[in-house]
């Protein structure tokens, strides 16, 4: 078991390295970097290519893709000064070195220094840590609501297969799955925020100045609508999954044995079948880890909630390569941990599985 986990962790580290290379290459090849996005519209800067070059150098954006990645990953504090140079002609950059023209003395992602976010002008880790918990609270509470509900509905639907309850829940949850996030959010906002005026957008009321429990209740009130949307959107897939699993288990031989023992239908379904159904369900739960902390870009943007999702969405739009890299690495690490947790969960819930 221990050996297995060590093996998986080492493999995970390898995966994360691979992910970071691909991500960096992709982000670097996106047209329009941060400097262009921010300063090209500024007439004072736009007219002066020299100023643009200076800015790029300042942000460390003038290195080649590979050089930039190495600097991002391992830092440039150990690089000799002479590696950084540029050939200028009349203030215009003709050729920058492989490593760019300026040493920034960063420590690199390997030392958990993900650099400073261009947009938010603060260390990436700090921005993530500050805004992660809003998203976490939003997703966790929704998860606590929709997961048991979906499991319950799925079980009921499977037990009464092809009955009225089955068809009703199937149709309703299918509608839920089919809605795009922004569409359902827009409808909900239109009805509950603008027409009825029961809720507001944002995380806190604009003129609110309380703290402690007052602040908590104010924020909780603001999170109700987004949670509602998450529940509606997510309940369908889990419910369908439970239903399929349950149907499979209910047709198993050991369920017939349980019935042949004279057990009531209730204990056949909710004891004998349920425990078997829960094996895949619990493991799916462990796989939800990244979405728990990662937030939802579109949802948070729709409801103007300053969670990690909205922040990364803005950063992405503005070409903030540092923040986007940091955020995506965060997700990659969570995904890898989630995968390992899934395997461990199998051992916990299924007596037949042993990790070696």
């Amino acid at each position: 078991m221990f050996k297995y986990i060590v093996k998986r962790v080492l493999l995970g580290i390898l995966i994360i390295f691979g992910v970071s290379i691909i991500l960096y290459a992709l982000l670097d090849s996106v047209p329009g970097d941060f400097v262009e996005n921010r300063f090209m519209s500024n007439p004072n800067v736009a007219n002066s290519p020299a100023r643009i070059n200076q800015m790029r150098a300042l942000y460390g954006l003038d290195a080649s893709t590979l050089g930039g990645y190495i600097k991002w990953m391992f830092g440039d504090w150990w690089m000799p000064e002479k590696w950084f140079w540029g050939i200028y002609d009349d203030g215009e950059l003709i050729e920058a070195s492989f490593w760019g023209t300026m040493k920034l003395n960063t420590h690199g992602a390997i030392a958990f220094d993900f650099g400073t976010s261009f947009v938010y002008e603060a260390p990436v880790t700090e921005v993530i840590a500050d805004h992660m918990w809003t998203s976490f609270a939003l997703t966790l509470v929704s998860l606590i609501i929709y997961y048991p509900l979906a499991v319950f509905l799925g079980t009921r639907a499977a037990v009464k297969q092809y009955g009225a309850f089955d068809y009703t829940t199937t149709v309703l949850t299918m509608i839920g799955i089919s809605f795009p996030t922004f569409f359902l959010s827009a409808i909900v906002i239109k009805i509950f925020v603008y027409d009825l005026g029961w809720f507001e957008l944002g995380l806190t009321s604009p003129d609110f100045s309380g703290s402690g429990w007052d602040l908590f209740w104010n924020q909780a009130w603001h999170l109700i609508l987004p949670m509602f949307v998450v529940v509606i959107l997510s309940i369908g897939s889990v419910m369908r999954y439970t239903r399929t699993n349950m149907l499979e288990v209910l047709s198993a031989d050991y369920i017939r044995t349980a019935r042949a023992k004279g057990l009531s239908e209730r204990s056949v379904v909710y004891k004998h079948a349920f425990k078997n159904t829960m094996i895949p369900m619990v493991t799916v739960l462990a796989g939800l880890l990244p979405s728990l902390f990662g937030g939802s870009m579109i949802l948070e943007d729709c409801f103007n909630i300053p969670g990690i999702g909205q922040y990364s969405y803005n950063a992405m739009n503005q070409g903030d390569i540092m923040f986007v890299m940091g955020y995506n690495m965060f997700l990659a690490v969570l995904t890898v941990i989630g995968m390992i947790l899934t395997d461990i969960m199998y051992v916990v819930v299924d007596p037949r599985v042993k990790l070696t």
Partner: protein
Amino acid sequence: MLFKKQDKTQSESSEGAEVKKSAHKGNSHYLSAKESREIAKSNARAMREYEKKKRVKHVDESVYTCKMQDENNIVEFDDLHTYFFTDAGVAKAVDGVTFSIPKGATVGVVGESGCGKSVTSLSLMQLVQAPQGQIVGGSIRFNMGDKAYDIAKMPINEMRKIRGKQIAMIFQEPMTSLNPVFRIGYQLDEMVLLHTGCTKEEAKAHSIEMLKLVGIAAPERVYSCYPHELSGGMRQRVMIAIALSCDPRLIIADEPTTALDVTIQAQILDLLREIKQKIDGSIMLITHDLGVIAEMADYVVVMYAGRVIETGTTEEIFHNPLHPYTIGLQKSKPVVKRKVDRLYNIPGQVPNPIDMPNFCYFKDRCDKCIDKCNGEYPHFVQVSPTHRVSCYLYEEKGAEGGSNE
């Protein structure tokens, strides 16, 4: 190249059309969209009706109380009909089965796969896969000692008290018949706790005793094992221990040795015989292995396509088989010391029990078919007080049929 390709697709498509056409002509089970819609509709109606009947909460006991025809029988199947409402039509899996199981006797039910043996036994437990499978007619009288119940009419709530306690079942697949996520001990205790209302400690002691009874060497260790930690034979022993733990009056063994290898088979059969003597109950043994029947059974019921075609004592069936199907079954069994080039096999397959015409179902595979066989389904001919056969060959001859071999 291109032309070649075209040719190929053409020939393929014409082939496909042919297949379709022949399916339409030759196969009577080809359904048009309209027909299949009608089937689905009538199925849904029938299933809803039967399910409703089963789910009724409070049924007066008098509705399902009946009288045994013979007090010495533990179970009497009387014209039992169990149908499956499938998308292709109504499959008459059990179609008018009549036989009885005397007290303290072992009755073997034989037949090929798909003859309705298992469905008959599942009907007795009301365990037929619902809602598709339903008992639609006939009665199953079960002797409770002081009274008798008609299981075909019993509501599920009452049936639960009989399952496990009065009738226990051993299934075919020991590998999948135990719940993989519960320990053996829990699965054993559960049964005892449910039917006897004793304490947990008593249940545990009883379970360990049961494990000992079925010949498990280390009952305490097995008690805390998960099913996957045991071998197939061990699991079948555990299944038998579960079945026995409430002293049932009837044990249904549905091909208990089919999934096991030969040495374990012999052990399990010995065990069953031993146990039958100990608990003084009856066994309904379902198998397609005639050797097992010869060794174990007192009476034999031969089933074919959902009907009983011959019944009698084991002696009668083995020394004087009458129905061509029974004769065929015996011929297709290897016998020690008899040399044959090729083992006999009955040509053809068991017919699909949907929309069966009213003549002897075995007619098309029978080598002794006579003109009369085109008539309606043959009635039973009583050859001896215990021996009955449903075949035209013996209709007039009656008892003379005994000299057939």
